[in-house]
């Protein structure tokens, strides 16, 4: 290590300490998911000046959801980049920046506007490491605010995560709490692999406390959110609060639900789900995404394969219908709801 490297090492340590102090300072009071994401970006940019933020309206405006608020002001327009209006361009130039040693964090403005970038994601982002046998890495994060329930027009409420779960080479994550939002995004940015980071836009303003004692090794693994004995309910992202409420409601009816948050949707970490199902014998999977050929199909198929003799009932799903996302006045009927979940748990227990 040269002296200059050592010096910058020290500075990096100093920055890391500052960031930790910052977090500790606000860790006491609850913050929103939106704020947590903003803080995570800020911390990552402070620690590593190769981290860039790029996308439509992420600079001066701070993003249509204000997730990048204030970053351009503090880090400048070469690190917080308002791009031309073209998503293939955002991801495709992001790939080039990653090859150059940067760590781009790309924002797709909405779920439904990710598809122009799909080719670059499948053909370059996902396959670059494999193609080059690791000569290139692809330290890139693509942030996608996803899901419905915000009363928006078409294309603004979709849940396309299953499409990305099908693509080898991508990691797909979705946080459901402010603490996870913060630490998972930090983790995603540090990973040398590309991460498609699905943010539950409907939950941007829900609050929680930042947990500072986090193990980076497991931050993106599946986690038991609530212990229970009668039926396991697995979900992720925007449906998690609904599931948690269903579990509370079920308790008053004398049913004990074990709730698991997947956090990483691909590659799946089904260990905790298997353990739980071996205990409860019942599994319900909850997601807004359409049902066919989806992440919920995969969880159902895998758990059935691996815990066949433990299951007292088939894995049941509460999922979006196999229709396009409906006009928003109908969306509450479309989305997983407390009653749909309880109803499905009942069906499972009735087997």
């Amino acid at each position: 290590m040269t002296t200059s490297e050592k010096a910058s090492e020290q500075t990096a340590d100093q920055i890391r300490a500052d960031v930790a102090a910052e977090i500790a300072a606000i860790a006491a009071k609850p913050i929103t998911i939106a704020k947590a994401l903003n803080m995570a970006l800020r911390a990552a940019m402070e620690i590593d000046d190769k981290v860039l933020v790029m996308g439509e309206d992420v600079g001066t405006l701070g993003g249509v959801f204000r997730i990048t608020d204030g970053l351009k002001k503090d880090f400048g327009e070469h690190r917080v980049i308002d791009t031309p209006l073209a998503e293939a361009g955002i991801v495709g130039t992001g790939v080039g920046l990653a090859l150059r040693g940067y760590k781009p964090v790309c924002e797709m403005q909405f779920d439904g506007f990710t598809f122009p970038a799909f080719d670059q994601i499948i053909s370059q982002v996902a396959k670059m490491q494999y193609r080059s046998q690791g000569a290139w890495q692809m330290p890139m994060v693509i942030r996608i605010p996803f899901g419905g329930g915000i009363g928006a027009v078409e294309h603004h409420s979709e849940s396309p995560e299953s499409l990305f779960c099908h693509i080898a080479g991508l990691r797909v994550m979705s946080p459901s709490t402010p603490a996870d939002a913060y630490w998972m995004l930090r983790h995603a940015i540090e990973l040398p692999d590309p991460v498609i980071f699905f943010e539950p836009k409907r939950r941007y303003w829900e609050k929680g406390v930042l947990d500072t004692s986090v193990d980076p090794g497991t931050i993106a693994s599946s986690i038991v959110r609530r212990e229970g004995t009668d039926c396991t309910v697995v979900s992720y992202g925007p449906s998690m609060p609904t599931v948690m409420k269903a579990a509370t409601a079920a308790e008053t009816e004398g049913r004990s639900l074990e709730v698991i948050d997947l956090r990483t949707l691909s590659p799946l970490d089904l260990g905790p789900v298997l353990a739980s199902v071996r205990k409860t014998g019942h599994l319900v999977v909850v997601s807004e995404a359409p049902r066919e050929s989806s992440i919920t199909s995969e969880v159902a198929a895998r758990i059935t394969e691996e815990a066949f003799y433990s299951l007292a009932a088939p894995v049941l799903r509460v999922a979006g219908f196999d229709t396009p996302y409906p006009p928003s006045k109908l969306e509450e009927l479309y989305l997983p709801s407390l009653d749909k979940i309880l109803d499905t748990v009942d069906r499972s227990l009735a087997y």
Partner: protein
Amino acid sequence: MAPDRWIKNPDADPSLDGPGTSGVPSAEHMVRGLRQTAQGEGLVELLSPEGELSSHPDYPLDVTPDLLKGLYRDMVLVRRFDREGNALQRQGQLGIWVPLLGQEAAQVGAGRAMKPQDMAFPSYREHGIAWCRGIDPTELLGIFRGTDHGGWDPKKNRFHNYTIVIGNQALNATGYAMGQRFDGLVGNNDPDRDEATIVFFGDGATSQGDVHEGMVYAASFDAPVVFYCQNNQWAISEPVETQSRVPLHQRAAGYGFKGIRVDGNDVLACLAVTRWALDECRSGNGPVMIEAFTYRMDAHTTSDDPTRYRLADVTEAWKMFDPIERVRVHLTRSGWADDDFFASVQADADELAARFRAHAVGLETPPPTRIFDHVYSSPNPQLERQEREFLDYLEDFSDGDGPDASSGGASLAGTAAGANAVGGVL
């Protein structure tokens, strides 16, 4: 040494490039952006901001009192229901509204240039084109109230559905125009039967691959399509210079067809140039690109807060170029219209606004079965089963309070404001 002409910002302040750039663009930054796109080859103009009429050798137009009065009425009515849309959203009656304020001339000029047999592909802001195509403004409301993804018969009026994914419609329109040509309805020297297509998109959209591919295909297949770009200087918060160093109409030459830049706040120029372009297309000389140089006077949508990214004084400055005012001035000064005329237009506008409002407020949520309708042209067992099971499930609750349909349960109340705030981001 490179000639200056392709150097961006030769007089740029290098400090603007550094990491210290302030989050808000400076006034000079804005003005430089404007100047840069405003300069270059002159705008086609027939009616000056001061209300002076002129003529243009390439784009002749027979300006009669009736014509100008009609255009005036169109613009006033369109602006009126547009403003009502904003108000309805503020009052919680719409989830979002996409204002066109400032773009009335660009839209009415283009809309009135179309013949009945022509086809229009709008993006999402083309309420003025809808008006000219004979779509009742109330038909636009379903999308913005969240009761519908469409709302009008796109075939009857030859006005396609709104397209929200930026740029998609450029290709769809080109394909439609290819069909007009394959149908033998181009180049027959029969202006009452020969057809053309016009597609609307913004300055931001020009960056999308789809718009490029639309132009490539249109050129390759001689498609009778007019690419009508309303350069309103902004793509949400991004100034047009983020998308291009040079005026956008110059793109056309790279594909081997004609690009024209017109004063988008001059309804006569927009009418004359668009009519010319559509006629070129219908007689087989398409495609053509038009850049209507205008300004988005309001927010991007009702969910947007432009104070975060642009200076009010620039917007103020653009008021001097108001598309309606110059027509009013000319009508008054020339004596073509009297107070009665203006009063009656105002009365019509108010009546339209009232009808628009009443319709919005009365729009009802469709039945749950609508979720499952028209996914395919015919029923299929998989979806029928999902529908049946869902209706059964709803039925189970029909005796009591109904199911808790809220996907967020009680705590959503706390976030409703937040959710509303973004409900409409487009």
